[in-house]
């Protein structure tokens, strides 16, 4: 990069354009449409959101009438117990669902990594929950969770796991586990596919060597599989964490704005749209942005994604 700059400088006096400069010009020309669109759809809205967070603005009137209130919205935010409750909900949701998904995903990945008849069908089945729209999976589960006609209660009672029917999505104690289970169903297979790719890159000779040395399967798993799977595991974990932190669809569809399960995103949208508080809702958006931004920075730094 530096070298290119030096060369460009050296040739600036010369006639015509150097190959490097011509290349750079082409590169920027090719990048221009993407950069313009990204500035328009990401840069501008982000700027406006931050700007609005320092104002009191109603969403219902357009053109907007806003007056600047300084840090007042942020002061409210820090004192808003419902906000902190939704932050806590989101963190609980993220930690529990990503934790279960990782363990379960690793298990399924190792299962599918073995050769057995019907492995292809299994892999296809793994893509189904991933491909189903989150809203659809939420509705499907909502119907399965139904307190009177739901199949979950029926199966659980037939297996004698429970002795009566529960209102899974209305009972304050069961709501969060119910919502987390749906997320686990939807994203575990995806996690498993990512980990499967990692597993398949582990050379078989390593296990062979382990067997010659008399290692049992558990030792093989701890000493060979886990260390070599670390990079794939890390990528999958971080992506899922970022995804879970902004959870909206599943919670909104299954339990609406019920405080017991309300996530940061659901609360922010309620303020922004349902209550029309564009200023306060934007301050909340910035709060979410900061929380998730910290994770993104940690991700980019810790993985050091290579460009060339």
């Amino acid at each position, binding site marked *: 990069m530096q070298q290119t700059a030096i060369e460009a400088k050296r040739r600036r006096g010369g006639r015509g354009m150097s190959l490097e400069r011509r290349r750079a010009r082409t590169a920027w020309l090719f990048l221009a449409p993407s950069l313009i669109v*990204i500035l*328009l759809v*990401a840069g501008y809205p982000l700027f406006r959101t931050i700007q609005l967070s320092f104002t009191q603005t109603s969403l219902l009137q357009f053109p907007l009438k806003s007056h600047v209130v300084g840090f007042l919205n942020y002061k409210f935010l820090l004192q808003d117990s419902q906000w902190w409750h939704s932050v806590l909900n989101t963190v609980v949701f993220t930690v529990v669902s990503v934790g279960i998904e990782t363990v379960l995903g690793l298990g399924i990945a190792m299962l599918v990594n073995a050769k057995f008849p019907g492995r292809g069908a299994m892999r296809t089945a793994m893509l*189904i929950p991933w491909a189903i729209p989150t809203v*659809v999976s939420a509705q*499907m589960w909502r119907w399965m969770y139904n307190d009177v006609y739901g199949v979950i209660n029926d199966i659980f009672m037939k297996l004698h796991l429970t002795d009566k029917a529960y209102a899974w999505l209305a009972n304050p104690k069961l709501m969060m586990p119910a919502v987390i289970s749906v997320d686990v169903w939807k994203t575990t297979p995806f996690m498993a596919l990512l980990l499967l790719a990692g597993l398949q890159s582990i050379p078989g000779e390593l296990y062979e060597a382990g067997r010659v040395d008399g290692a049992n399967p558990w030792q093989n798993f701890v000493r060979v599989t886990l260390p070599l799977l670390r990079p794939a595991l890390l990528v999958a974990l971080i992506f899922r964490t970022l995804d879970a932190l902004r959870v909206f669809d599943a919670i*909104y569809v299954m339990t609406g704005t019920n405080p017991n399960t309300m996530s940061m995103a659901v609360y922010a949208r309620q303020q922004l749209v349902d209550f029309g508080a564009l200023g306060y809702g934007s301050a909340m958006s910035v709060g979410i942005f900061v929380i998730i931004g910290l994770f993104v920075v940690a991700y980019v730094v810790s993985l050091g994604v290579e*460009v060339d």
Partner: protein
Amino acid sequence: MRRRRGVGYYLSQVAFAILVVLVFIYLVFPFFWAISSSLKTPNELFATPLVYWPPIPQWHNYVEVFTAQPFAHNLLNSLVVAGLTTLLALLIGGTAAYALGRIRFGGKRTIFYGILGVSMFPQIAILGGMFVLIRTLHFYNTWWGLILSYMVFTLPFTVWVLTSFVREIPRELEEAAFVDGATPVQSLLRVLLPVMAPGLVTAGLLAFIQAWNEFLFALTFTVDNHARTVPVAIALFSGASQYVLPWAQIMAASVIVTVPLIILVLIFQQRIVAGLTAGAVKG
């Protein structure tokens, strides 16, 4: 070399088979239940004990989705929005991916990280600002509002997946074109584009699925069925009375939107897995 296979071996094989079957049931049961429910009469739907499969499958719920609900219009909206979003993202993102994957120039790292960062943008963080942008452009409650706002996640994602594909293409191909006197644009169109086709299909498919499934923006930037897409429609389905949800219709609609996705997944599963593991990983 053959090892002796004792009772333990066969027991573990049986345990393994049972585990596989259980996982398979866990993965597909919700979808099976949606299909079964969508084929039931109201009496079967609300029967106790539960009916696991209707003796005479009924198709009327599928008909009612289109007659009692404006679902055909929702489907059209979804197709247009997801289709145009994908085309635009491929068109704009394709050239950017070429620049990032091929050309050496100063500032590339910054741009790449910038795009990577935007691809992880939580949508909620820009909801207010995006709303203002869409209102200002008079795109509220239109296809264009959704297509524009979907660029925020499909474009960086497309650029990222395609960049990883472009990097895999052997440099000699282009050098040969360059020696033959082709300009960068010519080498992109004539040499790289055909080779990039699999990458474009993968990136396009993933972008389409993302746009097809999107909910938050679609819910916020539409107000009625003029531009309302399928996920919002399914979330907001209402029946004759406010308190009774038309579950059989909801399940029928769910099956209708999921079947095309499953067919796509079946056809392109190798590519999808490759694309997801190549670089970008969004659910």
